[in-house]
């Protein structure tokens, strides 16, 4: 048996070695390396939950090892043997109690964070709105304030809360920019809000997180956070120098395909609203949050 324990020790060490070698570059863990307030708040909850779990797991594993060594069935083991001892109110209260307390603490933090994330990350800066449509198999971003559109990349001003309004003109996907914060589904017929904000200038990896068929694996996009001045400059240049997205153009874009990064100087009026409506939005108004003030009637779930 000792040989087996040796093997186990060796393999565990080897395993840790491999994982450490493979992932020694800390900056690659983008979820753990957020660049905005939403991502930071989520990271804080992740850390709290890890600590709360470790508090219970590490001692339990310790007890497990101790019990195993002490109470092995071998000749001359002097440890007490009480085959009939099977009840202890005190002990049971303790181990019903510990997890209840831990879950209660974590529950409170979870509830707080959940509520926090439904609000803009900072209150004193005027947010901007970016509408996001997932399609087969690309992402379209429309800027209702600027009336410009992009495909497979978005530019946002750093330090400004961004209300992403999400829908889908294809099977449901999920909009995820790990370094800015967690994801939210894009669903046909619904438009839902997600608050994100970049604190630092940079280009962030974004991906579709829910499977949508053949081209799904290629649905990455970039979110470029730039200064407010650069953002305005970029918007102007798109306005001036890019082609127009016409109705016919959208019909073509809508067809299943993979696309490179595209920019459009304008898009048909009410494009986003029409996408939501034609996919079922007209049946459930209360789910709609168009984000541009043109709003459909009913409540805004994220406010």
């Amino acid at each position: 048996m000792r040989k087996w324990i040796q093997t186990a020790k060796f393999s565990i060490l080897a395993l840790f070695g491999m994982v450490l070698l493979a992932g020694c570059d800390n900056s690659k863990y983008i979820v753990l390396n957020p660049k905005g307030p939403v991502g930071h708040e989520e990271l804080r909850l992740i850390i709290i939950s890890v600590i709360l779990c470790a508090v219970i797991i590490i001692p339990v594993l310790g007890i497990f090892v101790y019990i195993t060594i002490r109470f092995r069935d071998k000749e001359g083991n002097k440890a007490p043997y009480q085959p009939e001892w099977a009840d202890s109110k005190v002990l049971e209260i303790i181990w019903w109690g510990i997890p209840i307390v831990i879950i209660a603490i974590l529950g409170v933090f979870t509830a707080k964070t959940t509520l926090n994330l439904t609000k803009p990350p900072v209150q004193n800066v005027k947010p901007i709105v970016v509408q996001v449509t997932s399609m087969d198999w690309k992402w379209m971003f429309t800027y209702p304030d600027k009336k410009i559109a992009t495909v497979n990349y978005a530019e946002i001003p750093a330090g400004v809360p961004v209300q992403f309004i999400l829908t889908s003109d294809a099977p449901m996907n999920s909009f995820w920019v790990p370094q800015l914060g967690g994801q939210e589904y894009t669903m046909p017929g619904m438009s839902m809000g997600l608050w994100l904000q970049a604190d630092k200038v940079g280009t962030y990896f974004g991906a579709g997180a829910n499977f949508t068929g053949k081209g799904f694996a290629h649905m990455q996009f970039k979110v470029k956070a730039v200064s407010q001045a650069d953002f305005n400059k970029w918007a102007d240049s798109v306005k001036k120098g890019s082609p127009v997205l016409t109705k016919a153009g959208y019909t073509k874009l809508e067809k299943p395909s993979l696309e490179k990064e595209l920019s459009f100087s304008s898009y048909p009026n009410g494009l986003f609203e029409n996408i939501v409506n034609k996919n079922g939005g007209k049946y459930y108004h209360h789910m709609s949050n168009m984000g541009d003030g043109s709003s459909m009637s009913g409540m805004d779930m994220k406010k």
Partner: protein
Amino acid sequence: MNTSHFFVTGDPMIYGADASIVLVTLAIVFYLSYFKKWGWLWREWITTVDHKKIGIMYLLASLIMLFRGGVDAILMRLQLAIPNNHFLPSEHYNEIFTTHGTIMILFMAMPFMFALFNMVVPLQIGARDVAFPMLNAVSFWLFFIGAMLFNISFVIGGSADAGWLSYPPLSENQFSPGPGQNFWIWGIQISGIGSLATGINFIVTILKMRTPSMRLREMPLFSWSVLSASIAILGVFPILTGTLLMLTIDRLLGGHFFTMDAGGNPMMYVNFIWMWGHPEVYIVVLPAFGVYSEIVATFSRKRIFGYSSMVFSMIAISVVSYYTWAHHFFTMGAGADVNIVFAVCTMIIAIPTGVKVFNWLFTMFRGRIRVTQPMLWFYAFVPTFLVGGATGVMLAAAPADYQYHNSYFLIAHFHQVLIGGVVFGYLAGLYYWWPKLFGFKLNDRLGKWAFWLWQIGFYVCFMPQYALGFMGMTRRMYTYNQTMGWDMGWAPLNFISTIGAFLMGICFIFQAWQIIYSIKHGERDVTGDAWDGRTLEWSIPSPPPVYNFAILPTAKGRDTWWYQKQEMKQDGYKKEPVTFEAIHMPKNTGIPFIMAIFWFIAGFGFTFQWNWMGIIGLIGVAGTLFARSFQYDTDYWITAEEVEQTEKALGRL
């Protein structure tokens, strides 16, 4: 339906599969004909209603499905081992991950679980069979035929490729035309009806068929776990049936329950499917908890600690599991209030689960621990499940889940709880009860090789996947490019993960070899009590005679057999003289098998939208039910003399 698309063509791997299917079928037909085994197959297995044989058939089928699902897993890992790999095209990869998930949960875990139900529960509660033996056979054959229908899709018609839960609108005609998705629906629908029937069967068996002196609160914990899992089955499988039926109506009859247009609501499907799907994972893990409870008590030579707590926590898990489904879509934009409620409910499940771990530990405390093969799997289970449970709690914290959802973190988590909890548990149960069913133990040395390969393979495969989740890799990607592979660091971890998958693949070979080797060379058990057990199943010979108990046993509190053995060891113990009585038994019947064949015809017909064929199948199903209701010769008696002779031959007199 264009018949030129009937057979899947174009992929050399599929042609390989075609050839191997034909060869294996020919080999089986040849074997059965040459050794004149057809009659034996029909009399002993196909028409049997004996729970032990049905259990063995479930076991065999689930091991074959484990192999199929495992091959799928290895193919996926091969494809992901390096960036920009061209080993599998997107469509094929999508079919494989869909098949892998569906098979592992519905056609591997479920039948493995039912194998343990059937092999153990009647023996443990002192019963001669389940409450409805014929229905039990129906359940098995519906599962089997459903699994076959689902499995042939990769050579005929094409497999489903919309994920194991097939979310619409992707799974609707608009995005998934063709028979693949229908195969998925009908395979699951048919076997799901069987699962529901098994749930009912075991609730009634446990409530009504216990040996008269066994009280519910003295029943062994494995049987309790079966009862709580069966109650959950009864609660949620009808939801699955209904949901699949709605999807069928959408696809077959042009309905609009879940479509994008005409007022359909895909979100409704997601709710329904998880109302079944989440309790489903607790359904498969509860019996594993039951297995551990039996094993830990036996191999610590001690009563299980905190019996009432154990029972209460299982019931609590099966009840609370109904209220956690929305945690699968925290990110679908439900309000903060909804997310908080479901997050807290999900975390609450961790409490009774944690309590069970403490109770197992304190069963070992002041016991005498023997590290045998079944116990090894318990040792593997504890750390694996603790970490898996912890990552589950992390996922339950809704806002944190926004960052884990659909990433490899999630993949690592559910493999850790499903392999660490369910597979390890069922394997522990398999090693534990194998000698009971077959009369010999499985070889120790080969078992340890398999065990350590499983352990190392598991951690090498899945630990890197947690890290991949933190690196932003999402599930169901058939490939990733060089930038993601190297600059973002995905490639090395994926490569390590693939090595782990291969190690697990090797250990499956060891286990198959272990079984084959042990059939010839395994340590024979003539006592019927291979592990110095505590519960009633160990009081009868291994393998048990067809009627299980010659005389219905008297249960005196918990762990009856343990205390009876102590009594027997005392000086002056006198065996009470026994008088045998005739035993009433159910007769074999071919109807379940024939009914399943008709279900297959129906499912196959509707899959290809050949409605005439589907309707013929359904008429056949109704016909078999009709025929059964006029079958009066369904039981027989084993005479007292026969019982006496059998017991004598088994050395029990």
